[in-house]
């Protein structure tokens, strides 16, 4: 008995820093957020208990529903393209050797380690309506220049593109690791049987890489639901409402309009959406392709 309680004390000393931080900085704010959703509190200060009014308001709030829609649109534009393109790039890198491989991998990966504000500065410059170098490409293929980040139609796809440019390195890395786990023998054997590139991809690479694909899809989905930084920055000064996403709406309600209670309600809805979506996706992705 004596040693048992001493063991507990030793363990407590080990887990204490994490547990205390966890309770104060994670669990408490989470509980507090839920309580806040039932009040009309401003950002700082107490509010009245108003029951489910915030939730009722949520479902009638056009701006909120459009933020949900925009977030979904952004997810649609990023998650699957980013995953598939990541696989394609990884296969491209994997074919090369030596310096060529290092160069190509670095080209795909370097943007990923940059801060979002640097990515914002780069693309603001690339796409500048008057001086942006990418406007030449737009001019050539589309026929005219577009102030892309302020344009209703172009803004979301362009920001999805910037996001893919920025983050694809992560996916490429995971896929390369997955590809290296596929035994070369399988390709050699299938080549003897006369299998061409497409057949090899279809019947060897794709089924064997699927666990990584599922992992990348899951990570991407949860990540992109929480999108804020690049959209906020790239649309600074533009017509923000067209591209307002959920986290941005939390920010707007709580920090700009000083509605802490309603902001927390939006935040809680984001939490609920993420839980539901990740459970659904987990179920869906457990199935392996044939």
């Amino acid at each position, binding site marked *: 008995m004596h040693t048992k309680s001493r063991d507990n004390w030793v363990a407590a000393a*080990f887990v204490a820093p994490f547990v205390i931080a966890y309770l104060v900085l994670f669990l408490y704010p989470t509980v507090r957020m839920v309580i806040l959703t039932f009040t009309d509190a401003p950002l700082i200060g107490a509010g009245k208990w108003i029951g489910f009014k915030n939730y009722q308001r949520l479902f009638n709030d056009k701006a909120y529903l459009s933020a949900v829609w925009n977030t979904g649109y952004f997810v649609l534009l990023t998650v699957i393209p980013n995953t598939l393109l990541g696989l394609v790039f990884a296969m491209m890198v994997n074919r090369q050797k030596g310096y060529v491989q290092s160069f190509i991998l670095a080209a795909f990966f370097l943007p990923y380690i940059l801060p979002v504000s640097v990515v914002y500065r780069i693309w603001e*410059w690339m796409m500048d309506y008057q*001086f942006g170098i990418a406007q030449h490409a737009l001019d050539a293929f589309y026929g005219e220049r577009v102030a892309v980040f302020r344009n209703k139609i172009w803004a979301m796809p362009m920001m999805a593109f910037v996001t893919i440019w920025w983050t694809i390195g992560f996916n490429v890395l995971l896929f390369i690791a997955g590809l290296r786990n596929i035994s070369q023998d399988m390709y050699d054997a299938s080549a003897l049987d006369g299998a061409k590139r497409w057949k090899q991809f279809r019947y060897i690479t794709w089924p064997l890489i699927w666990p990584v694909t599922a992992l990348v899809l899951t990570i991407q989905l949860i990540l992109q639901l929480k999108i804020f930084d690049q959209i906020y920055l790239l649309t600074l000064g533009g017509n923000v409402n067209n591209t307002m996403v959920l986290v941005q709406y939390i920010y707007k309600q709580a920090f700009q309009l000083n509605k802490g209670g309603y902001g927390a309600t939006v935040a809680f809805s984001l939490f609920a959406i993420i839980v539901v979506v990740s459970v659904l996706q987990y179920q869906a992705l457990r199935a392996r392709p044939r």
Partner: protein
Amino acid sequence: MNLLKIDFAGRLITLVTLAIAIVWAFPLYWAVITTLKPEFEVAQPGLNLLPKTWTLGAYTHVLTTTKIGQWYVNSVVVAVSVTVLVVMMGALCGYALSQLRFRGRTALWFTVLASFMVPIQALIVTHFVLMSQFGLINSWLGIVLPQLIVPVVVIVYKQFFDSVPKDFREAARVDGANEFDIFFRIYLPMNWGVTTALAIITFIGAWNAFLWPFLVSTADDTMTVTVGITMVKENFGVQYARNLAAAVLAALPVAIAYLVFQRRVTQAIMLSAGIKG
């Protein structure tokens, strides 16, 4: 016979790959080269791959007219604090979960796993309320604290400590070592590579963090460099060279960290995604 046949399709793929890689890396090159041009040249049309006049004017302008020096200090203090605390707390807790038997161990483990579900972005409102109650708005500690919850570090450490052979532990116990000795003298040094990898990736993450530092630091003096460079106002005319020079300066530490510790960074990314490499 087959060996002599040139694989045209293969060569084509290689060429396409190279072309895509060059296009992909071009914005980085273009951003850096723009900072070395004078502003009037930046505004000239066309693809001028090299400056006609090389100048560091954009950099001296940024360094002398903005508080980037102060932002740098803030960023270093914040990122280093977050790194040290996250890695230390993660290692200690991971060790307990892996090696010690104590009440509430299973509950703690599931709590750590479950916390993946709560998006930290959803907590910005209550984090702000909490930090203002502590009086930490516009302070280093206020930027640091909400960034300390990184459950994945605990999980990675637990996995690695799990795979240390039990013999080391038994031997040390026989020699009369206590848990702290075992942790600091055996488990931590044996997994030094993991610690380095996690530290680098945590540092990069903390340096790059935007949303929270942006919310909690509203004064010019307390911003991190990642937030600060977005606040430089364009009062008149084009100043892309200057804006990008500030961006290059902000990216420098993480770019260097990556180039120096390339393999560790990639290892850490795999680890945090659940692929043990």
